[in-house]
């Protein structure tokens, strides 16, 4: 019996369902806990069935055979894990930049650094880095009461 990578995902699903069941049981009212108990149990059962199929399947299980993705999902492109991790790192870095420095500084920094590191000429990147936040601020200005996050750094500095 070989444990495949998808089996771990099914175990995770079972744990999540058990968590919902465990948190629902002590609830006072039946109306509060009925549907979470039902769907938690169904999810647990389905995951257990699929896990059983995965563990007893000969060769590659159906769940690991690459099938066409859902219609609106990502295209099937064989790229390395490092490319995906790199893209994720940029997004997380952008978020951290917003958290610390606010949108005003994070947006042009992110756009400029991303474009330049990917091979765009620096003055083209600079144009996008300057015009994009300007356009965003024009749009935000039109929305009454809307304001972009200023960042923790500015708060610490007393602004």
């Amino acid at each position, binding site marked *: 019996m070989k444990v495949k*990578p998808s089996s771990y*995902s099914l175990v995770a*699903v079972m744990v*999540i369902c058990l968590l*919902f069941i465990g*948190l*629902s049981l002590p609830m006072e*009212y039946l*109306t*509060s806990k009925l*549907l*979470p108990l039902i*769907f*938690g149990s*169904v*999810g647990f059962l*389905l*995951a257990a069935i*699929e896990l059983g199929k995965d563990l007893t399947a000969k060769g590659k299980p*159906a*769940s*690991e055979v690459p*099938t*066409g*993705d*859902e*219609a*609106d*999902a*990502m*295209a099937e*492109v064989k*790229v390395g894990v490092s*490319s*995906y991790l*790199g*893209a*994720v790192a*940029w*997004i997380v870095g*952008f978020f951290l930049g*917003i*958290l610390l420095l606010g*949108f005003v500084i994070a*947006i042009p920094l*992110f*756009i400029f650094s*991303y*474009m330049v590191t990917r*091979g*765009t000429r620096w003055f083209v990147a600079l144009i*996008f880095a300057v015009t*994009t936040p300007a356009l*965003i601020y024009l749009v*935000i200005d039109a*929305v009454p009461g*809307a*304001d*972009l*996050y200023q960042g923790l750094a500015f708060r610490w500095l007393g602004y």
Partner: protein
Amino acid sequence: MVLEALVSALAYFTDLSFLLWVMAGSMVGLILGIIPGVGSLHAIILFLPFVFLLPVEHSIPFMLAAMSMSANGGSITAVLMGVPGTPINTATILDGFPMTQKGEGGRAVGAALVCSAGGGVISVILALGMVIVLLPIILAITNAEMVFIILVGLAFIATLSRGSMTKGLISATLGMLVAFIGYQPVTGLWRFTFGIPYLYDGLPIVCVTMGLFGLPIIIDLATKRGTIATAGTTTVGMADVWQGAKDVFCHWWLFLRSSVIGYVVGVIPGIGGETAIWVAYGHAKQTSKYPEKFGTGVIEGVIGPESANCGREGGAALTTMALGLPGSVVMAVILGGLLIAGLNPGPQMLRDDLPLTLSFLLVIAASNVFGTSIVLPLVSYVAKIASVPSRILVPLLITIIFVGIFIYAERVADLVVMLIFTAVGLAMVKFDFNRVPFLIAYVLGFRFEHFFFMSIGLHGPLFFTRPISLALIFLFIMAVFYGPISKVIKRWFQRGVKPQ
């Protein structure tokens, strides 16, 4: 009643601001549809956080127009560059791109655009006809039937979508569980919030949607360095484009049949646009006098799928608005937009807002006609958008997403939730869990629970014994158990037949 509502619906089109938002949505959808890897989903997801800023008469038409025109935009890149702008333009490449290689790209593009526009119009006419016929039945649907309509819809979506059926059902179940986070609709008590005030109102639809689908697609785009569309041409002659438009009228019967195929597929939840285009392509080939020529660049190979891909829009929109049941992730986002705008999709929306609902259907037709008439003379210029490299697009799209999510409620926590669901979305793709049932179940979860307990309150615990409910329960059982039972029966018969 419907005819009066239709006249009131047409009155919306006399409002200049309404028309401007429809036109704006058409252009945004067209531009985003042309860019390979960015399709109708992004065209509306990017706008979702801003829905609440506009009146519902502007925001929803914008989203519907963007959704409609993105497929039209995608057909341009499919034909001229051999790269589908959106997944539902894939079948068009088989004959569209060979036509470009033979020097008939303009003809193929003209035919594709006119078919798309015409298909959208046909589907809206069919949807309006269906409203007239089915309105009394739809208005008779009560909370009890809505419970089972949602279950049947989820079962169809989970079983008919690609991938493992069991995993599809697991995704739907998980989506429901996540929907239960926050306050319970009957008791008003908070569940699964762990004392965190942010979770008292549940997780915002925009954050979950953007995280599950928006950012993962951008990440995929980011891994494709350079320009996605490199082959083919962007230069077409106008005479050829008009010739293609005329070809549609020469093949009007194929165009009509394909549009109806698209409409029927669009009405059924769970069967995606890809099914519609391939069924239509197969039908066009089977009914052609020269089926052996398909794949080498024949105009029927373009007319069939393109008529179907826009033909499904009216049916899908009708199912979403009349039953409150989105059949695809795009429609789930539209449903989310309707909920954010304060509308109540389903029989109540037809009961209380029939003119507005019909105006939304008419927007699909209007945007197709308007958008196509604008883009037809400008195809060569518009197609160049597909050459924009991903290194320019990616940071701009990420910026718009982050700003949009923050503007929605001005909470940094929304960005955190979006990132968490991005990780969830990537994990689901990695382990082959279909994200569509998850999102649809999440969007419908709160309403499902509301309908469930309302039904018990009004009809008692035996609410499922109503005739329509029993029919829906039968459909649910068939949807879920037909596949496994037929496999068991097949295996049993095969064991019984011994080889000689």
